């Protein structure tokens, strides 16, 4: 969604592509290559089942080969669309070639990644069956074709290549369709989204996950350059509440697609992490306050819930609150901490606030680690934490046991997952309502220019304190569930930086990486940051190294986050929503109609 990548339109005559091939051969090559790539996945690529996924069977693709199939089919689809095959026109509204190049690149990258992974892991190219070689060659074909597509030549190979993957200049607006069709499209996209996301979580080995990431990134990039993402976000903007509802339906559907409670466990951890990231987004994304000790509020919530959970290790072991009460207590305790920390320090500006919050985060961790009656008051049981936290029980529904619902078995973690979906719904609601309100506008005003906002009569301190307290309370709420999910609370996760979420640095990274000030951004960022270290385990002791490099690269190529917040949009066009993705208001009406008719 970057505008920076688009190059100015010059009516320069389109010359030959990056590769000096006859342009007439380009598209057939692309088409044939795409089909060949998809087909090559049906061959045996290697001789031994030792490479995960068992790629040894002719006629039956496995694991990574499926990704090659999908990437190949996508290439074919886009190529066919560029041939003006009827019914596929919607894939390429702008008739640009960038999606072709990108899908071809995706197919190439996915296949070659697999081939290289086989050679590296099994120790040598000798481990490739002829099928593997065929796949490698087949996957290179569409790329050659794509690079030979007619393309304006700037004389500089790098620039030309950049231009060939640039987003379409003008995306014609779609023809108006009935709201029901719009909703149907949203439903279908949500279903596909759920499918894609579930596949990502369920990838059983890291190679598959990396391949999956490659395929998804290139596919999304292609859709983006084709202008389909813009179109979709416009649909979303028309049907906000419907999309939100569909999103939650998809989230609720997730555990029903799982047979193994392990993935529900990952799901619940992602949701907890994502919810806290969303709370932090109020503080960082909306109010612009850099908080480096945010994980402490999660800790306050978790410890509060643990203390009143009735665990025999709790200081107040006789006390057992029902969950609604402990959730409220946890949120309230976090809120109080938020106010206590915020009140004296929010008068500080910018980076001074950052270091003070970092300090408070550390104070929290050290304090709970020491308050065991030996080197501090006897409250938190020190480094041993508070284990044996009982499972929740709602009106006879025991969260700790498996339940059969409509033929599906929901395990323990699926139960908690559904509870977390509920909590996240509340948080999303609070977030969107708050961001939309008077106070939300004040936050943004403060974030953009505190002095000017104050001059306009906004009580900067007050609204900042509200942001701080609200963010804290939401994190505390998530903390109360996390205490029950993990059966125990210990001080170690609540640190400034560590190798695995949640910690303050990771929370901040989730917000920044996903996109500050949006709802979907931090959730996506949280999912990514949780899954990356988890799925990179196959790199063994190099996994953290890979993760660090991934962070640097992500920021290098997408510093505004995966889902960027259109601040200008918000300021100048009064859409009233925070996470409306990029729109081109100016060209919706005049140019749109004619072109779309042609396109449809």
């Amino acid at each position: 969604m970057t505008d920076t990548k688009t190059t100015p339109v010059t009516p320069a005559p389109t010359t030959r592509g990056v590769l000096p091939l006859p342009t007439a051969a380009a598209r057939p090559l692309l088409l044939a290559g795409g089909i060949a790539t998809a087909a090559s996945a049906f061959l045996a690529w290697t001789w031994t089942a030792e490479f995960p996924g068992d790629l040894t069977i002719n006629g039956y693709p496995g694991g990574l080969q499926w990704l090659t199939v999908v990437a190949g089919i996508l290439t074919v689809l886009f190529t066919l669309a560029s041939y003006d095959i009827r019914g596929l026109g919607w894939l390429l509204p702008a008739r640009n070639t960038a999606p072709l190049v990108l899908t071809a690149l995706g197919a190439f990258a996915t296949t070659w990644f697999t081939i290289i992974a086989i050679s590296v892991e099994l120790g040598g190219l000798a481990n490739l069956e002829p099928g593997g070689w065929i796949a490698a060659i087949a996957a290179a074909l569409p790329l050659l074709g794509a690079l030979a597509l007619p393309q304006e030549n700037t004389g500089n190979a790098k620039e030309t290549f950049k231009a060939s993957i640039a987003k379409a200049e003008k995306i014609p607006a779609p023809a108006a369709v009935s709201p029901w069709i719009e909703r149907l499209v949203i439903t279908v996209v949500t279903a596909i989204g759920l499918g894609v996301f579930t596949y990502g979580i369920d990838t059983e080995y890291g190679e598959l996950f990396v391949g999956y990431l490659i395929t998804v990134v290139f596919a999304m990039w292609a859709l983006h350059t084709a202008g389909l993402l813009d179109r979709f976000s416009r649909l979303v903007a028309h049907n906000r509440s419907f999309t939100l509802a569909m999103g939650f339906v998809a989230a609720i559907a997730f555990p029903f697609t799982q047979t193994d409670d392990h993935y529900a466990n990952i799901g619940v951890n992602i949701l907890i992490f994502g919810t806290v990231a969303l709370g932090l987004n109020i503080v960082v994304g909306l109010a612009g306050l850099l908080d480096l000790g945010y994980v402490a509020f999660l800790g306050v919530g978790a410890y509060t819930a643990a203390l009143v959970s009735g665990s025999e290790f709790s200081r107040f072991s006789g006390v057992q609150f029902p969950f609604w009460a402990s959730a409220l207590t946890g949120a309230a305790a976090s809120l109080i901490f938020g106010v206590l920390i915020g009140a004296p320090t929010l008068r500080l500006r910018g980076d001074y606030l950052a270091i003070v919050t970092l300090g408070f985060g550390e104070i929290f961790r050290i304090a709970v680690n020491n308050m065991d009656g030996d080197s501090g008051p006897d409250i938190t049981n020190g480094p041993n934490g508070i284990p044996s936290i009982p499972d929740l029980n709602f009106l006879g529904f025991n969260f700790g046991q498996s339940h059969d619902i409509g033929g599906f078995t929901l395990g323990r973690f699926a139960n908690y997952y559904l509870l977390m979906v509920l909590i996240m719904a509340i948080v999303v609601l609070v977030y969107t309502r708050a961001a939309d309100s008077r106070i939300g506008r004040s936050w943004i005003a403060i974030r953009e220019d505190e002095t000017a906002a104050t001059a306009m009569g906004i009580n900067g301190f007050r609204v900042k304190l509200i942001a701080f307290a609200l963010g804290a309370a939401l994190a505390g709420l998530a903390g109360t569930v996390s205490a029950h999910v993990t059966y125990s609370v210990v001080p170690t996760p609540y640190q400034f930086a560590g190798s695995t979420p949640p910690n303050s640095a990771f929370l901040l990274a989730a917000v920044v990486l996903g996109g500050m000030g949006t709802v979907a951004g931090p959730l996506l960022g949280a999912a990514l940051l949780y899954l990356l270290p988890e799925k990179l385990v196959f790199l063994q002791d190099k996994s953290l190294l890979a993760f660090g490099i991934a962070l640097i690269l992500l920021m290098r190529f997408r510093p505004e986050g995966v889902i960027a917040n259109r601040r200008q949009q918000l300021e100048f066009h009064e859409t009233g929503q925070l996470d409306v993705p990029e729109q081109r208001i100016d060209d919706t009406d005049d140019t749109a109609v004619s072109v779309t008719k042609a396109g449809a």
Partner: protein
Amino acid sequence: MNTLPQQLANGLLLGSMYGLIAIGYTMVYGIVQLINFAHGEIFMTGAFGALTVYFYILPDGTPMAVAVPLMLIGGGIVAILIAVGAERFAYRPLRGAPRLAPLITAIGLSLALQEVVRNFYPGADRARAFPGLDATHDLGSITIKDADIFLIVSAVVCMAALAYFVRKSRTGRAMQATAQDPDTAQLMGIDTNRIIVIAFAIGGFFAAVAAVAYGLKYGNVDYRMGFLMGLKAFTAAVLGGIGNIYGAMLGGLVLGIAETLASAYIDEIPGMQQLGGQSWANVWAFCLLIIVLLVRPQGLLGERVADRA
């Protein structure tokens, strides 16, 4: 036995180390308003650079008087290369990006540097022994060793050289100008990119000096040594007033002494017995920071209030 002089000396030593590292934070911040959270890791690589010189380049049995300066050079080169490389390849492309993007880059860089050392430096997956300067001297009620003297002397020399450089040299003055107003400085013909690189390089070299002192004093180095030291040094830089080089050193000294005294004496205060000791020392250090910032929001020697939210 009165332990106060010894404890003050302990704090002073620890503080000089914080101060040396804090210089790197403060100089970079003063010029580009960037919290280089990976600076702690630059400190760590400096230590491994020096270690490489000692174990893999110098012949066995090189006298320490010869080895230490060479280790300083080796560590300095490594730290400067990494600091400048980080600036060039990780931070510079992000200069126009949202303000928090470099922070995430820094976190990634920090992880990556730690892991590179742990994975690829021989034996670095655990602590590695570092040559020491262990001869001790009794000065009244204070015992210090040669490494401590090295630390104090190098801190003083470095600070004096830096003060001279910033005030007197052409580059130093250009640096001041860039810190005050980068745009105007550029209009005046100052190559701000060069100034930024120099700020990173000086920060890297000071971190390497601190790293050699660290190795000589504690006798071993490991790939995680930069994390806590970096955090403390950053705290020190803020305490002293971020952007001010004298503030960084002062902040370091105050923080080091506060931590040591808190660890030594808090538990002697009636009613605070359980809240003393080394495990609480960081809490008191951070409390001190918060109190100072509440009273003086710009830090001890900070001059202007940074108007950047």
